[in-house]
């Protein structure tokens, strides 16, 4: 198929960007979206132009690097996938496809389609861990049985890949689903309960400090999440947060 691409080009974080149109021809429907971008970039390199910068790595939907806003949707049309799992069979010959980076104050553009998501790292550093040293003397892994349901729910929350689609999809650019996924994982497990209050307060405070917007429970985050992280996690985070605020000064 032949396609017209309108791609956001921006030289660096401090300069203005704009949409630039490109044509690509003979695209196979079996290609992934990123393989189509490879074709475009090879074309650009061969004509001496600078290729489009974009984040990508594992190309199997788990590293969370890829981050394209395609035709107004995070990771493009189709649910439960990352950009690298989007296939060209989703498009038709002659389509015009608009490709932009994530748009959020807390995710400044680095170059073209690459954004800086280090705000996510800083939120995790604020409390997204259990304070246990490596010693070889921790208790036996089976010492505390965990109800299967809780273990499964913790796992569902923990599958978050930190791609930022939730923020990109949210009209307020809120990071609530991302933060809630981590808070929920730990809230559902017996390990690390002693620091649960500090954890949720510190992580939520850091989220606010990074400039993410507020959550108004619209649910776009969960709808666009490639790992289908449930909105229930946001409810659980809010519950954890209120409880923590009530019991700590």
């Amino acid at each position: 198929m032949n396609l017209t691409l309108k791609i956001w080009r921006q030289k660096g974080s401090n300069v203005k960007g704009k949409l630039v149109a490109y044509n690509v021809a003979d695209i196979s429907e079996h290609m992934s979206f990123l393989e189509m971008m490879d074709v475009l970039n090879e074309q650009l390199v061969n004509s001496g132009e600078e290729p489009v910068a974009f984040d990508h790595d594992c190309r199997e939907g788990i590293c969370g690097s890829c981050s394209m806003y395609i035709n107004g949707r995070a990771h493009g049309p189709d649910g439960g996938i990352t950009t690298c799992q989007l296939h060209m069979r989703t498009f038709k010959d002659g389509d015009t496809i608009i490709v932009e980076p994530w748009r959020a104050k807390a995710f400044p553009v680095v170059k073209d389609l690459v954004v800086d998501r280090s705000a996510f790292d800083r939120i995790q550093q604020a409390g997204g861990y259990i304070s246990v040293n490596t010693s070889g003397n921790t208790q036996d892994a089976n010492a505390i049985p965990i109800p299967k349901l809780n273990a499964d729910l913790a796992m569902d929350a923990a599958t978050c890949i930190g791609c930022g689609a939730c923020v990109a999809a949210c009209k307020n650019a809120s990071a609530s689903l991302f933060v809630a996924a981590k808070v929920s994982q730990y809230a559902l497990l017996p390990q690390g309960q002693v620091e649960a209050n500090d954890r949720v307060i510190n992580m939520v405070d850091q989220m606010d400090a990074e400039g993410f917007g507020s959550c108004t429970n619209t649910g776009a985050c969960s709808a666009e999440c490639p790992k289908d992280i449930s909105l229930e996690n946001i409810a659980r985070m809010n519950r954890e947060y209120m409880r923590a605020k009530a019991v700590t000064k």
Partner: protein
Amino acid sequence: MSKLDAKIPEGPLKDKWNSYKDKIDLVNPANKRLIDVIVVGTGLAGGSAAATLAELGYNVKAFCYQDSPRRAHSIAAQGGINAAKNYQGDGDSFYRLFYDTVKGGDYRSREANVYRLAEVSTNIIDQCVAQGVPFARDYGGLLDNRSFGGVLVSRTFYAKGQTGQQLLLGAYSAMNRQIARGKIEMHNRHEMLDVVVVDGKARGIIARNLVTGEIERHSAHAVVIASGGYGNVYFLSTNAMGSNATAAWKIHKKGAFFANPCYTQIHPTCIPRSGDYQSKLTLMSESLRNDGRIWVPKNMGDVQAIRDGKKKPTDLTEEERDYYLERRYPAFGNLVPRDVASRAAKERCDAGYGVNKTGEAVYLDFKSAIQRYGKEQAKLLHMPDASPEKITELGEKVVEAKYGNLFQMYEKIVDDNPYKTPMMIYPATHYTMGGVWVDYNLMTTIPGCYAIGEANFSDHGANRLGASALMQGLADGYFVLPYTIGDYLSHDIRTGKIPTNTPEFEQAEREVKEKIEFFMNNKGTKSVDHFHRRLGKIMWNKVGMSRNEKGLKEAIREIKALREEFYKEVSVPGSDQEMNQELEKAGRVADFLELGELFAKDALDRNESCGGHFREESVELAGEQKGEALRDDKNYAYVSAWEYKGEPSEAVLHKEELKYENIELKQRSYK
């Protein structure tokens, strides 16, 4: 006199590690604050090492090329992690895990290292659970296990099909705690481009900031390389697009020996390639072989009919199918080790029985498992009269619970429903057992320079068993390196900060800058990928699943010629003073073009078949094992450690003899 001393402690195998730990020199907590350690790579090995070293009190500087340490490619490991917990009471023990790993590695790994790995395996599970890793559990709330290829016990712990992700996020969370404390200085989007050696010791690195293009000097008392494997030398592999060998290759060029490059794992269950535009291959976890049965049609007529779209695989009766693994290896069946399963698939496809248009695909079929689970569920739910449709529905639910995310991934890529029609799979490059040579302390032949995880060579011999990579990465990072590096650093407590304004740093920086300038000013006409693809083709066709003298000699010549062409013709657009992904790739492919040649040279030297390395000249000619790989213990029971001498063709071979005192060398039989 060879320079290789593996420094294996004296004493019985079972006591080596414990008595070693009792005797090493320690660094007191106040002095640890005076010592800096650089860790390159933040996967399971690098992430766990960085976190643990920082917990101990060292000042850690960690580097990764990704935008966050959480994205290292360990994240993509699916199936699980082995540990000799014996929770299932099925006879597992340290010795059995040790035995399985040495046997699975086709008797080409070091006994003492593997036994230590088995010993610390149980600590890993305890540690990860304490960190909040949500492993799968049974209804009693205890940890669940599954079975993997090449073993007869259930010792694999897992978190759905995302075990690597959960373990890596555990290590990442431990890192985050130390980053917050200021004990880890994290450098995201940085790539190490050289190691700096001062007075014979590794004392720092030169790194490029991938956002600004700035070349930076970083000093430390020791340098740890945890940059993963070199599978992308094949261009197409299951590795991430950015996975590269540059850090490992740079230390090789500065004096670290490179061991067994020809030991590469071609994983049997990957999604077949579909066209020339393909950028990478996708692995489907080996755990699928627990329940999936592998087959091709018995009759060539059916193969043709399927390729022409006139028949569907589901049209074939049981009698018309050749479950070739069950036929050839009745004892292990579909759960033979990876190298055996891959070669068997290639054998069938080479004989013309491949089931897709390219002729390179076999079926992985879940029908039997769906029926078996369905009947089991019907019994449990007291539904003696369940219809066949109901049984299928119940069975599909069980399979979905076990492998749902893998099935979904397959369907997204192939656009075919694997619950209803068998999956198509074919082997692909996955893991590299070879790597930087290290001694028992995980130190390379450069004093103060360590290599851990997939980047080193030590534990998997010529073939890695499933669920052992995660085990080794975390063992090295959490439980081995933190001890062994302390013994070395205890001599550095009075050294003081390592200055970066020395001639050694200046020279290393100059060399890095010259290389970058070369690429930027080279007015070639072809993209980096163009050369990478061609290298991949040579490697796959001549240094792939099956190798022979003629092909290897051709590969060596062709890679050398391709390397010369690359330097003449490669084109890198843009500037080096900003983010430039083509420049990043150019440096990595330049290193692959050297590594590939050494790889072929090593494969040529090793005229025996062992594990992932199969030489057509070395097969069993008669008896029950006819046609199987033939190892040659008399002539090749050694580790090949190559010393850099300029061109790969001039590399000098050093041999570390492998001694087996606790295990009898046998022909691996999975019959």
